[in-house]
């Protein structure tokens, strides 16, 4: 065949340009005249301008593209098994996946549900295809992650914890943080949740840490499956970020939305920081065995993705529309991540609470210490002794670290807003709401509950805004319980009826594994109930002591 005369050219037929196709598809909608759609997703925002779809998307190309992505993912999983991936995987890493993968499928499917909300609120049909794709994408994310978890369960040395995953999600004192995140996408003011909290902040700012940083660390620990799945997930996010930005732009056009947008950007940023950095920071810094000093720390990645890419490049330009940006909060979050050791105090808290977890946490060792000190100067002075204690108390027969008075750790109050405990002790904030005392990790958390999640904001009625509810302080669910009974009630016991699912070590040997008998005889207490029961004087003293912090005793 002559050059340039390919079969394709002979048979090529005129098609419709993609812009034209997207326009025709957007014209599928109409304004109902017989029956109006009920406004079942209340919002206090006013949206009159139809958001534009800059992506010009059609489902015809979407489905084959996604199927192709799937083929690559499932092909890679098969290849990982053929390559005997699990022989070389680091159990320290995979154990944390029991927590991570228990949490993440719920926020994902919640994102799918929230497309119903923005889909109905957005005037016009331009973005309908974008929302549809995101809905199906999030269904993809949720079930592809459940599949990955099942795959770990089937192939990893210790399946316990994976085998109770969705049950554990509903009960664990750590997953409660992830539930706050996922419920934040679907409950309360529809725009606050489905647009600002989910898309403008969680997806735009924080998915890089979730879906790019996590995979890199996984690969460093011999886990090639997680990167395959999560990079594929992340490849859908740019579309979602586009949807959210489009909605945001059409909301900005109404000056009366500005006040609410300022409120929601502030709330969403702070809470995403508190939750995502707590969880992902811990997985990346403490779930790894790789201590290469040339790799970026979580703090360094945070600076690049959150501070530079999100805050400086995405948020700051919004000021030209007349929106006040929460500059101070961004700097405060950065300070928490660096100077105040936020992630490290979270990892410490998870480790202290190992008996009520459903995965194994092993001690950090000398090699880890060196890396932490290099990346976070001053780390050793604050955390070194603790991790030595942790190692020492990882052996059966010792009093578990949660109740061991020799260590010097003070069990923290729980933040009523982000549900991460009040770990930066000097920032503890105690406030009375409806005649009851509540504890917060930071004044911005108190602001979130008292000022943002209320029926009025700065004099403006906000009847659609949600409320923080439920039995928010996990510890009060087991106030006065024996530790062993609590673990049994949680279901965090292996099927022999006595061996715990969580273990403070990676020794895969029955002789080394803790059982209910090893933890019996200690009574759990809710810090909040205890605080509320104190006399005012005792309480004042307690708060002052708490804010002063604690010192870990030397471990010999």
């Amino acid at each position, binding site marked *: 065949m002559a050059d340039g005369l390919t079969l394709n050219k002979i048979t090529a037929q005129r098609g419709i340009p993609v812009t034209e196709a997207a326009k025709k598809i957007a014209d599928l909608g109409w304004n109902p005249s017989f029956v109006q759609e009920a406004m079942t997703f209340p919002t206090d925002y006013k949206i009159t301008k139809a958001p534009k779809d800059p992506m010009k998307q059609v*489902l015809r190309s979407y489905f*084959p593209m996604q199927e192709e992505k799937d083929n690559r993912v499932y092909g890679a999983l098969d290849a990982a098994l053929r390559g005997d991936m699990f022989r070389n995987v680091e159990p320290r890493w995979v154990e944390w996946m029991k927590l991570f993968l228990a949490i993440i499928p719920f926020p994902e499917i919640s994102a799918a549900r929230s497309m119903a909300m923005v889909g109905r609120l957005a005037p016009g049909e331009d973005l309908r295809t974008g929302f*549809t794709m995101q809905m199906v994408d999030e269904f*993809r994310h949720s079930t592809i992650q459940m599949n990955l978890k099942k795959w770990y369960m089937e192939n990893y040395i210790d399946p316990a914890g994976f*085998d109770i995953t969705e049950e554990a999600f509903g009960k664990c004192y750590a997953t409660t943080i992830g539930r706050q995140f996922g419920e934040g996408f679907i409950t309360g003011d529809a725009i606050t949740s489905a647009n600002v909290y989910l898309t403008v902040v969680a997806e735009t700012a924080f998915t890089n840490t979730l879906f790019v940083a996590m995979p890199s660390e996984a690969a460093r620990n011999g886990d090639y499956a997680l990167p395959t799945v999560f990079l594929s997930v992340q490849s859908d996010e740019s579309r979602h970020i586009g949807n959210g930005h489009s909605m945001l732009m059409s909301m900005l056009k109404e000056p009366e939305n500005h006040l609410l947008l300022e409120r929601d950007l502030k709330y969403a940023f702070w809470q995403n920081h508190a939750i995502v950095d707590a969880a992902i920071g811990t997985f990346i810094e403490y779930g790894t065995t790789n201590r290469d000093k040339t790799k970026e720390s979580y703090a360094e990645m945070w600076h690049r993705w959150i501070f530079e890419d999100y805050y400086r490049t995405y948020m700051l330009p919004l000021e030209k529309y007349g929106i006040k940006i929460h500059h101070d909060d961004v700097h405060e979050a950065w300070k928490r991540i660096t100077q105040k050791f936020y992630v490290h105090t979270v990892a410490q808290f998870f480790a202290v609470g190992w008996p009520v977890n459903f995965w194994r946490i092993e001690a950090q060792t000398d090699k880890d210490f060196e890396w932490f000190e290099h990346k976070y100067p001053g780390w050793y002075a604050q955390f070194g002794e603790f991790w030595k204690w942790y190692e020492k108390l990882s052996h059966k027969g010792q009093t578990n670290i949660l109740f061991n008075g020799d260590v010097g750790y003070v069990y923290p109050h729980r933040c009523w807003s982000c549900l991460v405990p009040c770990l930066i002790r000097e920032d503890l904030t105690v406030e009375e709401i409806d005649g009851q005392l509540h504890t917060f990790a930071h004044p911005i958390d108190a602001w979130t509950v008292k000022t943002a999640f209320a029926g009025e904001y700065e004099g403006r009625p906000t009847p659609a805004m949600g409320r923080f509810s439920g039995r928010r302080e996990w510890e009060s669910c087991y106030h006065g319980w024996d530790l062993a009974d609590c673990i049994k009630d949680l*279901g965090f016991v292996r099927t022999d009826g006595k061996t715990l*699912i969580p273990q403070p070590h990676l020794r895969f040997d029955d002789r080394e594994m803790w059982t209910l008998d090893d933890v019996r005889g200690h009574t759990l207490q809710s810090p909040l109930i205890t605080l509320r029961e104190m006399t005012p004087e005792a309480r004042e003293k307690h708060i002052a002591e708490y804010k002063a912090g604690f010192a870990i005793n030397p471990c010999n």
Partner: protein
Amino acid sequence: MATNMSSVKSGAAGAATFADSDSRKFRYFEPRGRRATHYEDVTVDVQPDPERYLMQDWIISFPDGKGAYVKEWTAAKSSNWHAFRAPDQEWERTHYQRQSTIEGMIQNVVQNARRAGAPARFDKAWVKVLQTHLGAWKHAEFGLGTSLMQAQRYGYTQMINNAILTNSSYKLRFAQDITLYLAEIGIDIEGFDDSAGKTAWLESPIWQPTRKAIETIMGATDPLEQYFATNIVFEPLVGELFRSGFIMQVASSNRDFVTPAVVSAAEADYERNLANTVDLFHLLCHDDEHGQANQQVCEGWLAKHVPLGRDAGQHLQPIWSEPRAKPVPFTDAQAHAQDRLAAIAGELGLNLPKE
């Protein structure tokens, strides 16, 4: 620090034996059959429930105090909402495989047909039918798709919501398939008016009762009513009537072998979505505790939507006389639609409203 390291040199299953080292199945739900299917493993309990494992209850609520998912969002009741499993067992992988296969099939058929010059040989009267009536129909499909997109937020379990979600995805895909198909054959057919469909949808007396039936489903606030009205009522009375009872049977006599291939995908979609819906409502209508109450609820929905569907179907009658070749009379197609509705209602043990 030797004691600090893993006791075993491998992280692979079977590298050591200890308590639960062989616990390789999710053990927090009851499979429907003897062993859990892949679909169940990736679906069940992902949407939590305070009555199962959500120990702290929902931790954010709407201003009225209701949590993320509440049972009162539908009038139907169940003694066990978690019992339902979608018969199509759809999860992401099967969904993309199926959707992608359909898109590939349609594009192949349309490309080959256009290459062969088929659209230009369609009967002239038939071209008018396609541009006006298939053109109008795409809006009905779209309306159902957006309505189901709304409903998938509100069901009480992951199984229910995901079944509604995939149904929505199928409907929205099909609405786009028709849109692009008409636009493409429009390039090959002189004088093809691509806007005639929407005009008919909004203005033609033939289509107004159909639009009313669709808007009534879109405007319903009960997610299971939307799901029920779509698959139990509208689809047999109007959807299949138009797609199978008209397009599929009449096209070829009017020298159109292409359109039936495009439309046939929707018929297959519907078979799956119908199976899912019937399974769910069979469960609800035969619930030990709430079966009778649910039958009443469903009969209430039938009373509301069946007359709209019958009226919509009836008003489509003139379409059957528009093509040059008329191989099937409207009355036959309509009778078939009525039989189909009766069969579905019968399967659920429901009484239909009198005509």
